[in-house]
């Protein structure tokens, strides 16, 4: 492992990794079940060298921005390496957004170059204004002014990595806000280097370990544990062009995957496949299996033991390839019961809690011993406090330390609102510490939800999509924001409506709601008689409305839409 502490920026760190691990396999690319490409660290070095020269020729240098819109694949990581070698700033955009949403974020971030896949470029109604380099282009495609990525020279001279300081911006990562106000978190090199050092101290990888990268690489977790982390350890990153559970399961086996980050719905899919297997067992086999699970629980009470669990519960482990050591899951939103289910089978899920504004994670569950009831303790370098705690010790979780963003791109107002006066990041999540300083999350003090698929949804964005619904006043809030519940799973959006013609309003709302993407849909309605509280400039005072609702009604007053 190359320790990140002595480095000033990701460019130098990644360049050293490509040199040090030479013949190790860096990347395996699969198209469903077939391998399409295998690249050693030397192969990656050769291609990124050529790409870096091409960027230099295109005039891209320190501080310039390069956006990526690609699904998880080798060229994503190689583009990112070249961007850091040029001292430029990476703007990783979510490939799952609609073309309109991506266009909004490109407009906001103003990159000098876009690197993307043909499948994404062709979706834009108007081609983005900046130059684009495109991968996966069919022969017949009309690229217009865009250029193909292919045909990189193989004999490019060595690269001189551009120097940067730890405080310089490494990436601009959008945490949300595709509707009204995009929030581009400017994360400096020190945030990544500090976070990487802390995470490798807890969960290092070895050469030969194989990480299966399925969460979008633009997402903070995959960027760290599915790119920079494995690269500085000389491990292998496996990409697959399809995320269907049946192909994921076959790749776990054929590629002998050891590490993987997942979202809750994938844990659900895995659990369904295990349940199906168990349901098919005869009663006495089922009893024998339960006895083995109990033995495994006893033997792994203090810490995970992959060798023991894989032997005791071989059929289950074989279904996941037999080599899977650790699963990572983005934390607040994972059902503790489900995490416990996997741990009992010897498949530990490391639960972390974080937000884009603070790089990758603020807390992780260290597994020694395993606890599913908390999101763990603060990682090295991160300080946490509970602000304005009530009598039960519950208040807003706030964070400080080297992993925090510098601020939001071009938005001093939102940046100021994100931090307290004494420089702590407001997470907007409610929590408390227990006696062993494990953090428990108990609701939200900001109006947003995170879906089981890991998407942040801001009610303000959904509101903008419901403009045509006839009502005196309509606003969208997260139920967990109005009535904080003790968990952060299964969060719902509700519409608060003031209307004289409830039946017309509801009919229109139902019809509009059906057209929204699943994760933006309203699930309940609260009819409200009073005028909404507003500022002098008629802006809705959401916290005041939420507290008025909380004071006079309960969640039972919400009717299903």
């Amino acid at each position, binding site marked *: 492992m190359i320790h990140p502490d002595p480095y000033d920026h990701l460019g130098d760190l990644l360049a050293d990794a490509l040199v040090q691990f030479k013949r190790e396999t860096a990347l395996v690319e699969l198209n469903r079940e077939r391998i399409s490409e295998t690249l050693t660290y030397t192969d990656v070095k050769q291609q990124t060298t050529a790409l870096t020269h091409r960027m230099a020729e295109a005039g891209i240098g320190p501080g310039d921005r390069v956006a990526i819109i690609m699904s998880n694949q080798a060229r994503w990581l190689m583009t990112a390496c070249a961007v850091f070698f040029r001292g430029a700033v990476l703007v990783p955009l979510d490939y799952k957004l609609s073309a309109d949403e991506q266009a909004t974020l490109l407009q906001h971030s103003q990159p000098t170059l876009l690197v993307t896949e043909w499948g*994404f470029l062709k979706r834009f109604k108007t081609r983005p204004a900046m130059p684009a380099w495109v991968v996966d282009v069919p022969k017949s495609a009309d690229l217009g002014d865009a250029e193909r990525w292919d045909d990189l020279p193989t004999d490019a001279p060595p690269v001189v990595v551009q120097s940067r300081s730890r405080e310089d911006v490494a990436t601009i990562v959008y945490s949300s806000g595709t509707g009204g106000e995009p929030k581009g978190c400017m994360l400096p090199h020190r945030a990544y280097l500090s976070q990487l050092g802390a995470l490798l101290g807890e969960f290092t990888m070895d050469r030969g370990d194989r990480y299966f990268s399925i969460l979008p690489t633009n997402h903070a977790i995959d960027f760290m544990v599915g790119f920079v982390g494995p690269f500085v350890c000389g491990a292998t990153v496996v990409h697959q*062009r399809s*995320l*269907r*559970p*049946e192909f994921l399961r076959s790749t776990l086996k054929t590629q002998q995957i050891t590490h993987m980050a997942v979202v809750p*719905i994938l844990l659900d899919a895995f659990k369904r496949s295990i349940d199906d297997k168990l349901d098919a067992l005869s009663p006495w086999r089922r009893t024998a299996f339960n006895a083995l699970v109990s033995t495994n629980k006893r033997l792994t009470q203090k810490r995970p033991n992959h060798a023991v669990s894989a032997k005791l519960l071989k059929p289950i482990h074989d279904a996941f390839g037999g080599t899977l050591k650790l699963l990572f899951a983005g934390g607040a939103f994972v059902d503790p019961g489900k995490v416990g289910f996997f741990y009992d089978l010897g498949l530990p899920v490391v639960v972390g809690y974080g937000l884009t504004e603070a790089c990758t994670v603020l807390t992780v569950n260290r597994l020694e011993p395993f606890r599913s009831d908390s999101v763990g303790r603060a990682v090295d370098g991160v300080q946490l406090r509970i602000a304005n705690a009530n009598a039960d010790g519950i208040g807003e979780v706030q964070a400080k330390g080297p992993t925090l963003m510098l601020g939001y791109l071009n938005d001093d107002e939102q940046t100021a609102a994100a931090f307290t006066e004494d420089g702590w990041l407001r997470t907007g999540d409610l929590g408390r510490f227990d006696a062993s300083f494990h953090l428990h999350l108990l609701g939200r003090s900001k109006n947003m939800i995170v879906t089981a*698929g890991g998407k942040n949804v801001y009610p303000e964005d959904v509101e903008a999509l419901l403009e045509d619904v006839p009502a005196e006043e309509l606003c969208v809030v997260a139920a967990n924001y109005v009535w904080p519940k003790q968990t952060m799973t299964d969060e719902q959006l509700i519409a608060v409506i003031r209307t004289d013609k409830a039946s017309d309003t509801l009919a229109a709302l139902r019809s509009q709601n059906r057209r929204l993407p699943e994760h933006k849909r309203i699930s309940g309605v609260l009819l409200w008689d009073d005028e909404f509280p507003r500022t002098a400039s008629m802006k809705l005072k959401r916290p005041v409305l939420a507290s008025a609702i909380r004071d006079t009604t309960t969640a039972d007053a919400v009717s299903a839409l």
Partner: protein
Amino acid sequence: MSDPILDRLLQLASKRFGVDVSALNPDDDIFDALSIDSLQALELVTDLEGAFGVEVPDYELQDARTFTDIADVVRDRV
């Protein structure tokens, strides 16, 4: 006129998720009609691909919401 791809999709959905085929309409939102998540929907698409011997990249299905939408995407590949 009956549409073989759509008909097959409705049959496969009925079989995989145990819903009566007469209760499914082509323009239903599949997530609501079948009470499934996006990964389960992709498993259904794999069934349909198998029936017609085609492969559809996941991202082409990103905006598909109804049975008709899915059948249309698969039809382009048949």
